[in-house]
């Protein structure tokens, strides 16, 4: 079969490396050009032929990447818990060894709305930061929000990308609290558990945040002071804070003269990424919906085919139709599982990144704020110097001393402002680099796991149809 590979990703640039691969082969462009809009750009991972990844490719049996470390004993078990695998298969063990996962414990009873869902957070680590190798604590949703709020207040304004916490959902939670034991509340609980797990993992993956005492306390200490006023702590609260910063930027009287092209380029890049991700997220949500519809229609058809088989008076054909009904029903189940995978892998990942990009954009705005502050102090200093000159001219010695003192203070402030601005710029550069690397890794590993679910579905489908074929041939 002739293979035609056409890469569409902006202008196709052929590097010499590519051309040497196959002189007769079809045109081959470097797929992962530095296309800023390419989700997989800047992949710098080296894959050597002896790496564990290769074994995943060529082995037949279940590979480490597919079998989860410890299945989460949650209310529903999705097929794969990906947080665990990521750590152990994709990074060398020395570099970063802190894995954690969440289990839903139970609904802590209370009167009506005072009931809450408790989550058991288990951490396994080899780092000396922690007192033990493995330990668990119990936390509730507001604790997570509280943690995020503390981290945001400490790190956002100096340029660190603090992962946003999952959204509050009054409707979803109410159903659970009221004790509704149905499919949708189970799904809700699992969705939340998974989201909290991803949130914590992202937080501890950050080398600075991991060392933060609030994070350590969150993971380790058995008792945690209750976080109050979680209104402002929610993801929506963060959004409001970010929007405030954005407003401030818009209201800036002096437009920031961006001397550093890197920042301008990166901001544009994140703008584009934001648009792309939102679009993708919408398409994937549509996919999940349609697959659920397909599953429903298949189940309905299976029933109908079974009835048709019963009605059929030719014996062998009747049996074949009943078998067909069974196959369709089994495939319907497969499609349902696939829809779950669509959701838990793709849709949630995309949703997470839409929120993360908001946090990234927020950090850029913080830099602008810092710049503004610096400029303001500089302007203030200028004014004070002018005032001082005036005072000197008018010969007012006592006021003059005060002015000189103020000027000294302001000079320090200006210096500090400049330092702050340089620091935040430096931090952001590092953060963005780290973020992009993480993003690529995250997407790659999730997409691969998603494809693996698709693959499993296909293999299963082959089995079902191959079992059906002789039945069809037996009709005489």
């Amino acid at each position, binding site marked *: 079969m002739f293979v035609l590979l056409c890469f569409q990703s902006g202008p196709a640039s052929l590097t010499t490396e590519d051309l040497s691969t196959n002189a007769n082969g079809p045109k081959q462009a470097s797929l992962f050009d530095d296309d800023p809009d390419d989700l997989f750009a800047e992949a710098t991972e080296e894959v050597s032929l002896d790496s564990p990844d290769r074994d995943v*490719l060529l082995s037949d049996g279940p590979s480490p990447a597919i079998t989860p470390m410890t299945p989460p004993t949650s209310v529903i078990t999705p097929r794969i818990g990906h947080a665990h695998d990521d750590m152990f298969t994709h990074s060398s063990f020395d570099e970063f060894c802190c894995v954690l996962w969440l289990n839903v414990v139970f609904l802590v009873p209370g009167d009506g709305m005072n009931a809450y869902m408790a989550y058991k957070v288990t951490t396994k680590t080899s780092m000396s930061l922690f007192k033990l190798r493995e330990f668990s604590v119990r936390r509730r949703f507001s604790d997570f929000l509280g943690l995020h709020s503390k981290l945001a207040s400490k790190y956002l304004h100096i340029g660190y990308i603090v992962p946003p916490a999952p959204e509050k959902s009054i409707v979803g939670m109410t159903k659970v609290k009221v004790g509704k034991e149905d499919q949708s509340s189970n799904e809700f609980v699992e969705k939340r558990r998974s989201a909290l797990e991803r949130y914590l993992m992202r937080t501890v993956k950050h080398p600075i945040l991991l060392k933060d005492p609030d994070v350590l306390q969150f993971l380790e200490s058995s008792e945690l002071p209750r976080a109050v006023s979680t209104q402002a702590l929610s993801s929506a609260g963060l959004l409001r804070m970010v929007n405030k910063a954005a407003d401030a930027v818009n209201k800036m009287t002096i437009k920031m003269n961006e001397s550093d092209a890197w920042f301008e380029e990166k901001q544009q890049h994140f703008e584009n990424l934001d648009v792309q991700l939102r679009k993708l997220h919408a398409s994937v949500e549509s996919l999940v919906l349609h697959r659920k519809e397909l599953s429903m229609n298949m189940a309905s058809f299976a029933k109908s085919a079974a009835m048709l088989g019963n009605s059929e008076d030719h014996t062998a054909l009747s049996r074949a139709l009943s078998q067909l009904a069974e196959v369709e029903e089994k495939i319907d189940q497969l499609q349902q599982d696939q829809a779950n995978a669509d959701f838990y892998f793709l849709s949630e990942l995309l949703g997470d990144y839409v929120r993360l990009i908001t946090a990234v954009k927020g950090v850029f705005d913080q830099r602008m704020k810092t710049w503004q502050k610096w400029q303001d102090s500089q302007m203030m200093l200028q004014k004070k110097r002018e005032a001082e000159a005036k005072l000197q001219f008018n010969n007012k010695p006592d006021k003059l001393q005060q002015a000189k003192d103020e000027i000294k203070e302001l000079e320090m402030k200006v210096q500090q402002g400049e330092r702050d601005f340089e620091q935040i710029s430096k931090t952001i550069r590092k953060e963005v680099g780290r973020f992009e690397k993480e993003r690529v890794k995250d997407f790659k590993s999730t997409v691969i796991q998603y494809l693996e679910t698709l693959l499993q579905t296909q293999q299963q489908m082959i089995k079902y149809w191959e079992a059906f074929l002789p039945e069809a041939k037996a*009709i005489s």
Partner: protein
Amino acid sequence: PIRSVSVDLNNDASLLIDIPDALCERDKVKFTVHTKTTLSSFQKPEFSVPRQHEDFIWLHDTLVETEDYAGLIIPPAPPKPDFEGPREKMHKLGEGEATMTKEEYTKMKQELEAEYLAVFKKTVQVHEIFLQRLSSHPILNKDRNFQIFLEYDQDLSVRRKNAKEMFGGFFKNMVKSADEVLISGVKEVDDFFEQEKTFLLDYYSKIKDSTAKAEKMTRSHKNIADDYIRISATLNITMSFVSLQKVEGRVASDQELKLTELLRYYMRDIQAAKDLLYRRARALADYENSNKALDKARLKSKDIPQAEEHQQQCLQKFDKLSESGKKELTSFKGRRVVAFRKNLIEMAELEIKHAKVRSSIQLYYICFIMCTNELQYAWGICKILCEQI
């Protein structure tokens, strides 16, 4: 592929019919009906005529109205060409053009064009099968109107109008309320027909339901295929030799041809068989009424010879319908079983093939994404996989 809906057609070299091409002008489809024959009843051994969908309907209706064929299963009329679905989608696509990227728009447009083509192909094939059913029927293939349809090189619309005026859909209207008569039960004397009646009524409602559900399934498949188009367009990673989307889309149309078309065709065929049962039931009723009339005549000692003759005619007609009907229904059952077998086998084989192709493609994607910096490695894997497809 849809030819396997009715197997063993167009085998007899004495009369071979096909529709080699067709033109689509807005709503109207013009079919080219091509005939090759060794029969002397035709003027030439090979010829072609242009026909519209309405001409097929005219032919079908005249056959239904012909008394002599009351004991036969008249092949169901081909459904009207329906481009409404893809047309509406094309319209929506045009409206939403501003909101999508160029790639997305191009891809969706291509997909829609393929849909149009599929509908077009399907309608050509159902019209072709209708004619081939007629040509392979020992009695119907000698019908005068059938010959006119194949041969007459002028426009048939004049004949069509005349026919409408003559019959006014007499038989058709009667047949519409067929089920009630059958169900309310003229007392059946023959076991074979009693069984057939029960079976066909039940089977018809079941297959109608299955057809509708199968159609819903294929629509869902299409929706998923469309989602994959959008996703792959947004991702910018388009490797267009065989993409996930293309395979999903193809499955939707192959599955449709196999399963849905099979069910749909036999639903209509069973309706035609029910119509036969109805006509026979009607003849039975007429016969019973003629008996009553004869008794009355004997009582009154009036018009006895006429009543006797009328009764004889009714009996003859009823017997003829029963004999012919039995033959038709038996061969119908055989035809149905053979067609189902062929289709189910082909469908299962297609599903297996597609699932294997999809597995290879998915594996390829996995390799490719993992080895993004090792292009030579990825290229090698790609070659191995493609050899397996």
